[in-house]
C-alpha cells in the first residue's frame, strides 16, 4: 500500500513545462512579497489603523518613555542585583558547583601528554602531576606529591598523596602508584625519538632513573644536578598516565582520553575540539591545602572548552556570557581592548607582570664573521622608541633570561649594553662593508602571530639608520617555522622576530634557550662542534659559529647545575652581558611590562599574570581554589 502510494510519485513523469511553471510560480510569489515589502508611490497613504496607532503613540509619549525608562531601570537593577550577589557570594567565601566556560584558539592535536603540547589544556585538568609551580610565588606545590626532599644534588624523593586513584575509565580506577609515575616519565624519551613528541627534551633529559621502594614513594635520580628540576616537574607535559591504557592503545594515547587521574575527566569530545569535562569521582583532593590546590576536590563542577579560531567570535562569546575568559593567543588582550572592556557589566580585567619573551634572531651563519655589522644592526634600532611606538609606552627592555628571573639585569644596564646610536651604527656598517656583504639588502619574516608592528618598526629603523633595504617576507605559520628552522645555508631570512609564550615553568629554559646552541640558538644556526646535531652539519660551517656559541653554551651549562642562588645569578648575569656584547646571534626585544586578561565577574580566585596562562604549570586551569559566584 505504502509502496503504491509513493510509487505513483516516482513513476510520474515530470515535464519541463511543469518545472518552469513551478519555478515561475515560486518566483512570482516571492516577487509579490518583495513588491509588497518595497512598496512604491501608491503606498504613500498610511492605512487608517496604522495612522491611528501612530497618532495614539504620539499622544502618549510619556507612557512609552516611561516604559523604556522602566526597562532600563529593571535592567540596571538586574545588573546591580547580579553584581551585589557576586559581591555577597565573594564575601561569603568559596562555594562548590557550576560550569566554567572557556575557549581556546588551538584545536586538539592528540591527547597524549607525553607527545602533544599544542592546545593541550586537557592535560592540565585530566592528569595528575607530581608538582605545580607558581611563578608569582616562585614556589612548587605538591599535587600528586604530598612532600619531597632532596637528600643529595642528584636525588629527589617524593612521598605521594595517599588517596591517588585513576578515574573510573582508566585502569578501573585503581590506586596510582610510584610505578605509574616511573612508567609515565620513562615514556618521554621514547615518545620523543619514536613518536615525534613535541615535548621539549629539556624537561626530561635530566632524568637518569627511578627508585620505587614502595607504592607511595618515588625516587628520581638525575644525570646532572639540574637546578630547574623542581619547576620542570610541574610541567603540564609530565602527566601521570595509566600504563594499562597506554599499552592497550598501541603505546600512545593520541586518540585516547581519560587515561589519568586528574581532577576532571572528559565527558564529551566534539568535532573541532568542543570538549566538556566533568568531575573525576575518584579524585580525593590533597591531604592539606597548599597554594592553589585545595584540601578537597576543586570547587568547580565542570568545564566547557570551545575551540574558537576567529578572534571576533571569541570576543562575542565572551561578551554574551558564553565564555568566562577572554585572552590573547600570545600574552593577553591589548591595552585598548582592556580599556574598552573595563567598563562592561560583569567583566573584570585582571593584570599583572608579563612573562612573555621576544627576540630578534639573526641567521648566525650569515652574521657570525662580521662583528661590526652585527653591532651596527643592534645600534641601528631605537629600542626605547620600540617601547613607545609598538608597545604604546607599556614596555620594558627585554633581557636574555626573560623579565621574571631574579638574575635579570637592571633596565639601566640593559640600556647601556643595548644602545641606540644611529651615527655609530652607520660608521660600523660602512667600515664592515655591509653593502658588499649584503648587496641585496636584508630579508625578514613578517608573521601575523609574532608582532607585525614590531617587525615593521625594526625594519624601518634599519633602513633609515643603515641605509640598507629590508625586504619583508609575509609568511604563514608553517612557512615561518620551516624558514626559521631551515638548515644552515638555506635560510631565506637575515633576521626575524621570535616570540616565546610557553613553559613558564622553567625560567632558564623560557628565554635563554633562544641564545644557546643546544636550544633555539642552534635552530637559528648557532652551532658548536659539541652540539648533538653537529654530525649533520659540515664542520667548516660550524667553524664559523663555534667560537661565538661555545662560551654561551659553557656559561649556560654551568648555571644550570649551580644550586647556590647567588652564584647562579652571577653566572646568569655574566651570560647576559656576554650575549649583549657579542651581538650574536639573538637580540632581546622589549616586551610589555604588564598583560591583561578579561574575566567574567562570576569567576573568583583567578590566578593573575604571570601565572594566569594555562600553558604554565599553575595556570588557571589547574587552580583548584577557583570558584563561581553564581554556582
Amino acid at each position, binding site marked *: 500500500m505504502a509502496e503504491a502510494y509513493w510509487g505513483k510519485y516516482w513513476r510520474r513523469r515530470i515535464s*519541463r513545462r511543469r518545472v*518552469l511553471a513551478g*519555478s*515561475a510560480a*515560486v*518566483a*512570482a510569489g*516571492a*516577487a509579490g512579497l*518583495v*513588491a509588497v515589502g*518595497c512598496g*512604491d508611490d501608491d503606498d504613500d497613504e498610511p492605512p487608517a489603523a496604522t495612522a491611528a496607532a501612530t497618532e495614539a503613540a504620539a499622544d502618549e509619549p510619556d507612557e512609552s518613555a516611561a516604559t523604556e525608562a522602566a526597562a532600563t531601570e529593571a535592567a540596571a537593577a538586574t545588573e546591580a542585583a547580579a553584581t551585589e550577589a557576586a559581591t555577597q557570594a565573594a564575601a561569603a567565601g568559596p562555594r562548590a558547583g557550576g560550569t566554567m566556560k572557556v575557549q581556546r584558539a588551538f*584545536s*586538539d*592535536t*592528540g591527547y597524549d601528554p607525553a607527545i602533544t*603540547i*599544542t592546545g593541550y589544556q586537557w592535560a592540565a585538568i585530566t592528569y595528575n602531576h607530581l608538582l605545580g609551580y607558581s611563578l608569582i610565588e616562585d614556589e612548587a606545590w605538591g599535587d600528586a606529591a604530598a612532600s619531597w626532599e632532596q637528600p643529595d644534588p642528584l636525588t629527589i624523593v617524593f612521598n605521594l598523596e595517599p588517596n591517588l586513584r585513576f578515574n573510573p575509565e582508566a585502569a578501573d580506577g585503581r590506586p596510582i602508584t610510584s610505578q605509574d609515575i616511573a612508567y609515565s616519565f620513562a615514556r618521554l624519551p621514547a615518545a*620523543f*625519538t*619514536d*613518536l*615525534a*613528541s*613535541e*615535548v*621539549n*627534551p629539556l624537561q626530561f633529559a635530566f632524568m637518569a632513573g627511578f627508585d620505587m621502594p614502595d607504592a607511595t614513594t618515588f625516587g628520581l635520580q638525575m644525570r646532572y644536578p639540574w637546578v630547574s628540576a623542581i619547576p620542570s616537574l610541574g610541567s603540564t607535559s609530565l602527566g601521570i598516565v595509566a600504563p594499562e591504557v597506554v599499552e592497550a592503545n598501541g603505546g600512545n594515547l*593520541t*586518540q585516547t582520553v581519560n587515561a589519568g587521574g586528574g581532577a576532571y575527566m572528559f565527558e564529551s569530545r*566534539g*568535532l*573541532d575540539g*568542543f570538549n566538556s569535562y566533568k568531575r573525576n569521582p575518584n579524585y580525593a583532593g590533597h591531604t592539606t591545602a597548599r597554594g592553589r590546590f585545595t584540601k578537597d576536590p576543586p570547587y568547580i563542577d565542570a568545564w566547557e572548552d*570551545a575551540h574558537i*579560531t*576567529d578572534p*571576533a*567570535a571569541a570576543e*562575542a*562569546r565572551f*561578551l*554574551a*556570557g*558564553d565564555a568566562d575568559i577572554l585572552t590573547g593567543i600570545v600574552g593577553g588582550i591589548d591595552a585598548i581592548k582592556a580599556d574598552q572592556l573595563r567598563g562592561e*557589566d560583569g567583566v573584570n580585567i585582571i593584570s599583572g607582570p608579563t612573562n612573555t619573551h621576544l627576540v630578534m634572531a639573526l641567521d648566525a651563519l650569515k652574521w657570525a664573521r662580521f662583528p661590526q655589522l652585527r653591532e651596527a644592526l643592534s645600534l641601528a634600532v631605537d629600542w626605547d622608541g620600540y617601547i613607545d611606538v609598538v608597545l604604546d609606552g607599556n614596555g620594558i627592555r627585554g633581557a636574555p633570561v626573560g623579565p621574571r628571573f631574579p638574575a635579570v639585569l637592571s633596565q639601566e644596564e640593559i640600556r647601556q649594553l643595548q644602545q641606540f646610536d644611529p651615527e655609530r651604527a652607520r660608521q660600523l656598517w660602512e667600515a664592515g662593508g655591509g653593502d658588499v656583504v649584503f648587496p641585496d639588502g636584508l630579508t625578514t619574516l613578517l608573521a601575523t602571530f609574532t608582532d607585525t608592528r614590531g617587525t615593521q618598526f625594526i625594519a624601518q629603523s634599519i633602513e633609515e639608520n643603515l641605509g640598507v633595504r629590508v625586504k619583508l617576507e609575509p609568511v*604563514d*605559520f*608553517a*612557512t615561518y*617555522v*620551516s624558514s626559521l*628552522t631551515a638548515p644552515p645555508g638555506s635560510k631565506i631570512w637575515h633576521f626575524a622576530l621570535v616570540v616565546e609564550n610557553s613553559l613558564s615553568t622553567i625560567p632558564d629554559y623560557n628565554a635563554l634557550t633562544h641564545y644557546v646552541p643546544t*636550544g633555539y640558538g*642552534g*635552530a637559528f644556526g648557532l652551532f658548536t662542534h659539541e652540539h*648533538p*646535531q653537529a654530525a*649533520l652539519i659540515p664542520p667548516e660551517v660550524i667553524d664559523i659559529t663555534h667560537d661565538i656559541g661555545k662560551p654561551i653554551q659553557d656559561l649556560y651549562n654551568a648555571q644550570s647545575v649551580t644550586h647556590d642562588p647567588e652564584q647562579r645569578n652571577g653566572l646568569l648575569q655574566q651570560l647576559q652581558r656576554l650575549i649583549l656584547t657579542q651581538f650574536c646571534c639573538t637580540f632581546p626585544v622589549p616586551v610589555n611590562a604588564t598583560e591583561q586578561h578579561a574575566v567574567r565577574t562570576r569567576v573568583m580566585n583567578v590566578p593573575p599574570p604571570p601565572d594566569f596562562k594555562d600553558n604554565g604549570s599553575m595556570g588557571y586551569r589547574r587552580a583548584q581554589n577557583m570558584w563561581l559566584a553564581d554556582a
Partner: protein
Amino acid sequence: MQAYIIRRLLLVPFTLILISIIVFIFMRAVPGDAADVRCGAAGNFDQQCFDVVREELGLNENKVNQYFKWLGDIVLRGDFGYSLSQRAHINEELGKRIWNTAQIGLLSIAFTLLIGIPVGAVSAVRSGTMSDYVLRFLAVMGLSVPNFWIATLVVIFPAVWWGTRVAPDWVGWEEPLTHLQILAIPAFIIALAGGGTIARIVRSSMLEVLRSDQVRTARAKGLRESVVVSRHVFRPSMIALFTIIGLQFSLVLGGSVIMESIFNIPGMGLWVISAVGERDFMIIQAVVVVFATWFLLITLLVDVAYAWVDPRIRY
C-alpha cells in the same frame, strides 16, 4: 543526451586526476611540511624528530610514489589517508564534515534563489522606477560588500550592543530550531553575493523577454499584465538562470570556508584552514578532491538540466 552525459561522466575522473596532481604538486612546492611544524614549532631541532614524522607520513618517499600511493588508496580503498596534525584517519571526520558543509551549501543556494529571483523579477517589471533603482542598488551592495565583513559584524555587534549572540555554538539536529538558526545566518550571508548576481541576470533576461514580440502579442490579445508576466515572461526568462546556478556552487564552497571559521561550524572549511596552517597535506588534498568532485557533479547536473528545460539546446 545520454551520450553527452556518459561523455561528461567519463571526463570527471580525468578532471579529478588533473586537479589532484595540481594540488599535490602545489602543496609540496610551498615551504614547510607537517614535520617542520610538528618538530620545529616545539623547538625540537632534532633530526630524528623530522625523520620520524616524515617516515610516518611517507614524505621521505619519492614524490611520484607518494602521489600514486595516495591516489591508489583513494581509488582502491576509499582511504584519504592519515592526518598527522589530528593524529587520526581522515575518512571518519571527513564524513561528518561533508554533511555539515553541505547543509550550509544547500541552504545558501536556496537563499540565493529566494533573494535573487524575486529581486530581479520586480526590478525588471518595474524597470526605471524607484523600486528598480533601490533593488539594483541592493543587488550591487550584496555583490560588492565582502561577506566575511558582514559576518564579523553579525557576530560581534549583537554581543557588544545587547550581550547576546545571534549564532550560537554548533549543536546538530538534536536541537532542530537552534541548528537551523546556526545554519541560516551564514547561509544567508553567503547568499547575498549570489543573490545579487542572480537578481541582475534575472532582470536583464526578463527585460529582454518583456521587449519581445511574443509579449507584445500577448498584451495585444488583451491578457492581464499579471498573466503576461507570469506566463509569457517568467518561463522563458528562467532558462538563463540555469546557466549561472552551477557557478553559484563555487561561490558557496568558497564562502563556506570563511563562514565556518567565523561561525565556528565544524565543516570542511574550518578543517582546511587549520590544515593549511599545520601543512597537513592529507587533509588539504582530501578536501580539495571532495570539493572538486562536488563541483564537477553539480556542474554536470546543471548542464543536463539546462538542456532539459530548453528543448532548443542539443549536445
